């Protein structure tokens, strides 16, 4: 008996094994590769190995030895010859702004001549080389394993003594953006709940034929391409769009008073609410379908008004659906990218858009990875709560 039980367990596990392996290779390993990039950055260390070895013994206060200047100068030279200096300079610049131009200017000056004193030649090229802070930044940029990307992603920095300090308010970018993402997601969740609850109630308490028809109306947008729905919001809401034209035509707005409803936060809010609303209605409906209307009737036969019966009898029984729908909508909105990118303009961007920016435009992949890990951790936290409260198996799509 124990033998056959063990056989059944092994058979069940073996059936899941191909997918477990597939997901591990095509999904978890890529996530791991991102995680690694968020704290592993060997590029500068590989580019300037000799200088960094010399700087290891340096006290960090006085000016470095002439030998250090010479080594760095030579390493710059050979990097410039291999056309790799620009990339290295950009990386160092991320730690200490201004370093890129300092390095490129110095390398240009040092291109040909063999100076007597490298220190003098380099300080003459850019006086930044006379400051200990420049060398400390260089040493820090050469660390193979670094928390710098996380510091940047959390709007922190190191001061000259190496202590972690917060950025001045005007230079904080990512924490306010993360906060904005959470607030917007919460707002969308609340709006979806307010819009979705009465609709789910209507569907759950209609005759089967009407209930099926109404469900189709909820499922149709759910199945329609995200880009199609985003396009239709642009068509509706833009300055020369259908809504503004209508408002002008019936005289509510003057032709010069058209409302900017898209390419800003309003656009993001409206479009995301419509796109995520089915994710709220469907779980609500699934729970409401199981709540017997007899309960409300019993309450009213005992003299409760509809409102009392609703608040004390119906609403508590639908709380699992409220939790399921709200968490699902909230989790999905935190990671939303496409819709804000297309209709958000400058002010309607969320944290995902910042990750895309660093992936594709600034090419600061380490920072993008650190932001990605932070976003993933945030979503993971709520996913964990969802799993505990609702159970992932409760997810249904049809």
């Amino acid at each position, binding site marked *: 008996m124990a033998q056959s*039980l063990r056989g*059944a367990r092994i058979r*069940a*596990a*073996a*059936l*899941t094994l*191909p*997918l*477990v392996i597939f*997901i591990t290779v*095509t*999904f978890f390993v*890529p*996530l791991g*590769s*991102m995680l690694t990039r968020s704290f592993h950055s060997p590029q500068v260390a590989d580019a300037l190995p000799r200088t960094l070895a010399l700087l290891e013994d340096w006290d960090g206060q006085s000016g470095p030895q002439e030998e250090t200047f010479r080594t760095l100068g030579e390493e710059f030279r050979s990097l410039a010859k291999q056309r790799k200096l620009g990339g290295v300079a950009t990386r160092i610049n991320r730690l200490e702004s201004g370093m890129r131009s300092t390095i490129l200017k110095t390398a240009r000056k040092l291109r040909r001549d063999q100076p007597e004193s490298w220190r003098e030649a380099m300080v003459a090229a850019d006086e930044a080389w006379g400051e200990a802070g420049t060398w400390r930044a260089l040493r820090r940029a050469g660390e193979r394993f670094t928390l710098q990307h996380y510091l940047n992603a959390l709007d922190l920095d190191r001061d000259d003594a190496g202590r972690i300090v917060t950025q001045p308010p005007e230079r904080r970018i990512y924490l306010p953006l993360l906060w904005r993402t959470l607030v917007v997601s919460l707002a969308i969740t609340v709006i979806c709940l307010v819009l979705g609850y*009465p*609709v789910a109630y*209507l569907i759950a*308490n209609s*005759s089967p034929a009407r209930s099926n028809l109404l469900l189709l*109306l909820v499922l*149709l947008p759910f*199945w*329609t*391409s*995200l*880009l*199609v*729905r*985003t*396009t*239709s919001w*642009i*068509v*509706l809401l833009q300055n020369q769009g259908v809504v503004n*034209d209508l408002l002008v035509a019936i005289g509510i707005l003057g032709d010069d008073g058209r409302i900017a409803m898209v390419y800003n936060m309003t656009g993001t809010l409206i479009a995301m609410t*419509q796109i995520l*609303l*089915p994710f709220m209605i469907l779980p609500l409906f699934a729970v409401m379908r199981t709540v017997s209307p007899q309960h*409300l009737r019993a309450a009213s036969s005992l003299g409760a008004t509809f409102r009392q019966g609703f608040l004390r009898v119906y609403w508590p029984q639908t709380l699992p659906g409220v939790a399921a729908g709200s968490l699902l909508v909230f989790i999905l909105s*935190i*990671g*939303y*990218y*496409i819709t804000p990118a*297309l209709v958000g303009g400058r002010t309607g961007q969320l944290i*995902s858009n910042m*990750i*895309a920016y660093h*992936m594709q435009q600034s090419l600061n992949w380490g920072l*993008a990875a650190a932001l*990605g890990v932070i976003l993933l951790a945030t979503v993971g936290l709520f996913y964990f709560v969802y799993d505990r409260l609702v159970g*992932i*198996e409760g*997810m*249904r*799509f*049809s």
Partner: protein
Amino acid sequence: MAVGRASFTLGERLERGLHLAFCMAVFAFLIAPMLIVVPLSFNAEPYFTFTEGMLSLDPDAYSLRWYRNVIGDGEWRHALVNSLVIGVSATFIATVLGVLAALGLSSPYMPSRQIVMGLLISPMVTPIIVSAAGMFFFYSELGLGQTHLSLILAHAALGTPFVVITVTATLSGFDTNLSRAASSLGAGPIVIFRRVQLPIIAPGVIAGALFAFATSFDEIVTVLFLGGLDQRTLPRQMWAGIREQISPEILAVATCLMVFAVLLLITVEWLRRRGVRHANR
């Protein structure tokens, strides 16, 4: 509505009326934006709004020119082919692996069921930008950046959770006595799967496959990160259209995609009802 007593006070009737009106407004909010696109795609002018001719139902104000443009445009055709190739391949991988895993997960003997399920579902809840960034690093390190293969594997990974969830849901209504009966009559596991389990879970499998296909067909972020010019899919082409040269061609494509969505939805609903009938029998 079935709730309530036979007779209503004026206040209650007012509340019900308000509730209905509110729901109608929400349904309009859900559906109307999409319906607006359909007539506009027949606009004879290159505008995104109703012209006076359209409002007065002048036949000359309507035309098929944007549809003709799309059909005659090699880029859109190329995008459609890419979408189909990637979508079908990814769906095939996702369905085979997903059904196998669902069979294992539905077994009462499956060890660490909860944890394995959580792992297999996670591609669905992970923010797509995070998955796409990770995949970009991974496939470029392997030298597979800008290939169809990387997109097929990426879309298969994103599609499997839908197959797993849909098929396990169908299997939860499966009477295990049927397998046991078949087994006692001498059927091996493969025969049991083909002749007993598969016919019963088939609607769930097809629905799951359609979900996986729809996921791939609509996916854009991994295409932006992993795909090059040769891997442009329909969503990628629309994205370019919305961001770069906005033209009513996009509305024509959007209308076609909407018709496609309606067909998918009807198929899935039909399968679901068949499944329900099966379970009730």
